[in-house]
């Protein structure tokens, strides 16, 4: 230690930018420039078809190929993605879950092709499928099968890829779905417990080695704008994980009990209005995970100022990277010991969180653990309730969001002068190109080898052997992502997760500032019911592979609370299914929610099918991340109204919806 209490500077955390789009080649270029800018690790964003196990040529992939991430169908794509990037020197984080076993297999196979020994590979597969059911929505198989895939990956890497972080238990996505700090702590911990119990139950890890597995478990955490509380939350995580690993798993080595975590800071609170303010939010949120040396993040990736507008451009991501670099390299933060040791305030609040979270952990364990509480809908329901409470508080002005419900006046912003160009747009041609490339791949590969690899995969899937082994072989043989996943769909089936909306008890209406408005809306529905003979009925649909459910859930609940009968079938429903449901249910109104950017492909498709089914008269509205130019096109196609995040006053939306039903009824 140097004089006057200053120390050697700590090594900064790993700095990443979550990125990938269009094609493997385009993403490869992006990664190289990012590394040149001083980024110290890679964070791969895959497109939704890859995440949910479809190739570009699958009908379910339409509109989604290359949009929100890179499409990786086979080892050729993976090679192109890391072309010129030596895998033995990289630390690669892959946000991949249901297909994690497969994508890691492609990565290992690519490394082997590069002549790299898998034992030196470093990086992370997210591989937390539990939170997919609760928030992120890219699950494929039923929970039991998912748990098996998770444990297969973990038990394989412990020996064969020992520096790999096989799973990132995610509380990040829980906060993005509305979780309170207590819920975030509790549900991440029960997930970790569920996973470790399952690993134990495989019997593949000798008792003495179990600490090694525990030591490989890492977390992916969120940090919201209440940054003092978030700081305490991180400290609570450290304490609780130490407790769980010691008491439940008997781990004696303190290093193996350490809470290791990466962070993406809160994006749910980033606003469409006055988006430049988001930079300040991001900085404050980053403080929560860096200030405490004793609970500091290992890796950080930040969203960009234009988060609520659409995908970030390279410049936007650069701004976020520079934010991290300034904190790490310009400030003196990394020169000090833990700043809060001895702080009674921090200690007390940390203890509060420890206790409330521990109580909720016990509640879930009492209900049979994480998997049971996913299947029964218990956790999802709690999240939906928290999110509803949050939105209600913002709508009522009880929770201040600058530029949204307070201090809303603004000079024209030079950043958003040309709004439609303030985001990254993906060339729609990407889709067709990827399909063509896939066809070429299938023609030129050795199809006998592929068949053999698939047969072996099927055999193992039905056994209790490790799926990694035949998956790596299949990767080398040229099997595609869709082939891998479809085969397993046949063996294990698919799963639709509980939506959490039916049972959610939500104090949205009867009390608070907006009670009167809500009463008026209810009266109008009542009057409409009397004049139409039936209560107004609405279908809330989520077409495509998009898993962003928050908006649809909250619209559905709110519509119920003003008196609509609401049909909501959850995420990932095809346009055909939406139209069939609209027809069978006899709805008066259809609301589509799309945040993944595929609205221009999917909304018109639903409209076309509605007309073909004789439902052309039923008003359709759309909501989500829809740039104004696209919104205009949708309105021209006949969409009655388009809503985006800036429309945070749900009461106003409801009023519009009632108008629409009213007008349609009057016209009949």
């Amino acid at each position: 230690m140097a004089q006057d209490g200053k120390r050697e500077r700590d090594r900064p955390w790993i700095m990443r930018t979550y990125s990938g789009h269009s094609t493997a080649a385009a993403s490869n270029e992006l990664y190289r420039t990012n590394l040149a800018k001083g980024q110290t690790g890679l964070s791969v964003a895959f497109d939704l078809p890859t995440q949910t196990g479809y190739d570009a040529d699958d009908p379910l992939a339409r509109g989604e190929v290359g949009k929100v991430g890179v499409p990786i169908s086979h080892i050729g794509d993976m090679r192109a993605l890391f072309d010129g990037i030596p895998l033995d020197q990289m630390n690669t984080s892959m946000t991949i879950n249901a297909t994690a076993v497969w994508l890691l297999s492609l990565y290992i196979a690519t490394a082997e092709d590069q002549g790299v020994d898998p034992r030196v590979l470093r990086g992370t597969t997210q591989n937390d499928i539990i939170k997919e059911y609760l928030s992120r929505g890219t699950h494929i198989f039923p929970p039991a099968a998912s748990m098996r895939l998770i444990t297969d990956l973990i038990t394989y890497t412990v020996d064969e890829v020992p520096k790999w972080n096989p799973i990132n238990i995610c509380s990040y996505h829980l906060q993005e779905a509305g979780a309170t700090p207590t819920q975030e702590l509790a549900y991440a911990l029960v997930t970790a417990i569920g996973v470790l119990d399952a690993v134990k139950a495989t019997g593949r890890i000798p008792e003495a080695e179990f600490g090694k597995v525990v030591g490989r478990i890492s977390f992916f955490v969120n940090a919201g704008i209440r940054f003092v509380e978030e700081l305490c939350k991180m400290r609570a995580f450290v304490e609780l994980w130490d407790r769980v690993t010691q008491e439940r798993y008997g781990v004696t080595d303190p290093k193996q009990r350490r809470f290791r975590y990466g962070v993406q800071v809160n994006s749910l609170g980033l606003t469409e209005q006055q988006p430049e303010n988001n930079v300040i939010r991001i900085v404050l949120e980053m403080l929560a995970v860096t200030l405490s040396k004793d609970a500091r993040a290992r890796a950080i990736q930040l969203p960009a100022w234009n988060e609520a507008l659409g995908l970030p451009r390279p410049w936007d991501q650069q701004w976020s990277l520079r934010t991290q670099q300034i904190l790490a390299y310009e400030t003196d933060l990394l020169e000090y010991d833990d700043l809060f040791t001895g702080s009674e305030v921090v200690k007390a609040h940390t203890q509060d969180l420890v206790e409330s979270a521990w109580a909720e952990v016990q509640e879930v364990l009492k209900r049979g653990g994480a998997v049971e509480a996913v299947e029964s809908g218990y956790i999802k329901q709690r999240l939906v309730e928290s999110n509803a409470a949050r939105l209600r508080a913002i709508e009522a002005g009880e929770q201040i969001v600058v530029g949204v419900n307070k201090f809303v006046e603004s000079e024209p912003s030079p950043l958003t002068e040309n709004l439609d160009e303030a985001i990254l747009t993906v060339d729609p041609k990407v889709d067709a190109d990827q399909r063509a490339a896939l066809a070429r791949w299938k023609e030129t590969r050795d199809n006998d080898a592929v068949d053999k690899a698939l047969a072996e995969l099927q055999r193992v899937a039905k056994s209790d052997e490790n799926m990694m082994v035949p998956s790596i072989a299949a990767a080398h043989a040229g099997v595609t992502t869709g082939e891998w996943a479809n085969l397993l769909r046949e063996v294990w089936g698919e799963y639709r997760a509980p939506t959490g909306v039916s049972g959610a008890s939500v104090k949205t209406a009867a009390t608070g500032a907006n009670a009167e408005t809500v009463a008026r809306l209810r009266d109008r529905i009542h009057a409409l019911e009397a004049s139409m003979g039936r209560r107004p009925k609405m279908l809330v649909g989520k077409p495509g592979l998009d898993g962003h459910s928050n908006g649809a859930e909250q619209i559905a609940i709110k519509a119920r609370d003003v008196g609509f009968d609401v049909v909501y079938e959850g995420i990932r429903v095809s346009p055909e299914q939406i139209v069939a449901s609209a027809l069978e249910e006899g709805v008066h109104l259809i609301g589509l929610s799309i945040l993944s950017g595929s609205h221009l492909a999917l909304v018109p498709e639903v409209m076309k099918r509605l007309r073909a089914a004789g439902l052309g008269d039923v008003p359709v509205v759309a909501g989500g991340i829809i740039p104004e130019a696209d919104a205009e096109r949708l309105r021209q196609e006949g969409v009655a109204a388009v809503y985006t995040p800036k429309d945070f006053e749900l009461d106003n939306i409801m009023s519009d919806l009632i108008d629409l039903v009213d007008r349609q009824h009057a016209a009949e």
Partner: protein
Amino acid sequence: MPLSDIAEDAQQVMSANKAAVSRALNLVEDRRAESHARVAELLAALKDAPKAAGGHRVGLTGPPGVGKSTLTSVLARGLRLRDRTVGVVAVDPSSMRSGGSLLGDRARMSFDPTDNGLFVRSLATAGEVGGLAYAANSSVRVLGAAYDTVIIETTGVGQSEIDIVHVADTVVLVIQPGSGDVLQFLKAGIMEIPDILVVNKADQDELARRAVADLRGALRTAHAVGAGGAQDGAWETPIVATSATKGSGIDELIAQLDAHRKHVETALLARRRRGEVQWTLDLFIRKHGEHGVSTLGGRRLLKARAERELDGGETPLSLCEQLSREYVAALGQTA
């Protein structure tokens, strides 16, 4: 729909045209007084539909979350594989505060959207009429005219377990392993004995076997104390273990459904009529109590009247509303 189109639409319903079925279901939900005549005409036109008499109305009831919707989905798939067409009415509760509802059963059913032989309609209980939805009975009649099997999923709480008896030819009570309450209710005779008992979530053999054994015991005790239900003594309630998520036990369930349908064959129409009469009275009593009954001349008279008027095309709902009006008028006179 004007009156003249109704006959045409009824034809379309009987040939399972989805748009027509949907319109007909919308119509029977319509509560406006001016719509009652058309509802009556529609139901009358559907009364002798060939599918109706040969069809099967299956009621699925049981506590929330036992897997009724998931089971409905796999059961429907099993029936479709046997080339039988299926209509589903899924009932969910309405919010007491707003009157609105979140109709969540559909989310748990997966089906082929291009299949013309499967139709699912969600209904809200809409408060005042208790467990089943306002239009449940009429909706079953519409779907029964279009499809071979009609499955009614109840909310599983409150009155629905009782109401379902009036609507279904076969009542299936779904429970899950370890549901002690149900056993107690059966033993104590609080709960009517269903036609078929399903132990769902029997994913693990051992648990399932134990649950089935427990239930057998409870049923024996229930019979011994002469608990209600047993509409005819010759039928012995079978117990079927299923796993809706794995799809196991479904063949056996279908076999038992078929067996029960056969068992009630000769008494089918009488059973349905009895159900409707009973439902009419129940609805009325729930609204106006015994005082309502005595004001309109007593139970026996009302029953006879219900039998007559239901034959004449009234539905339990329209008739109940008619009776309500008479009761209110009578009250006015005595006041």
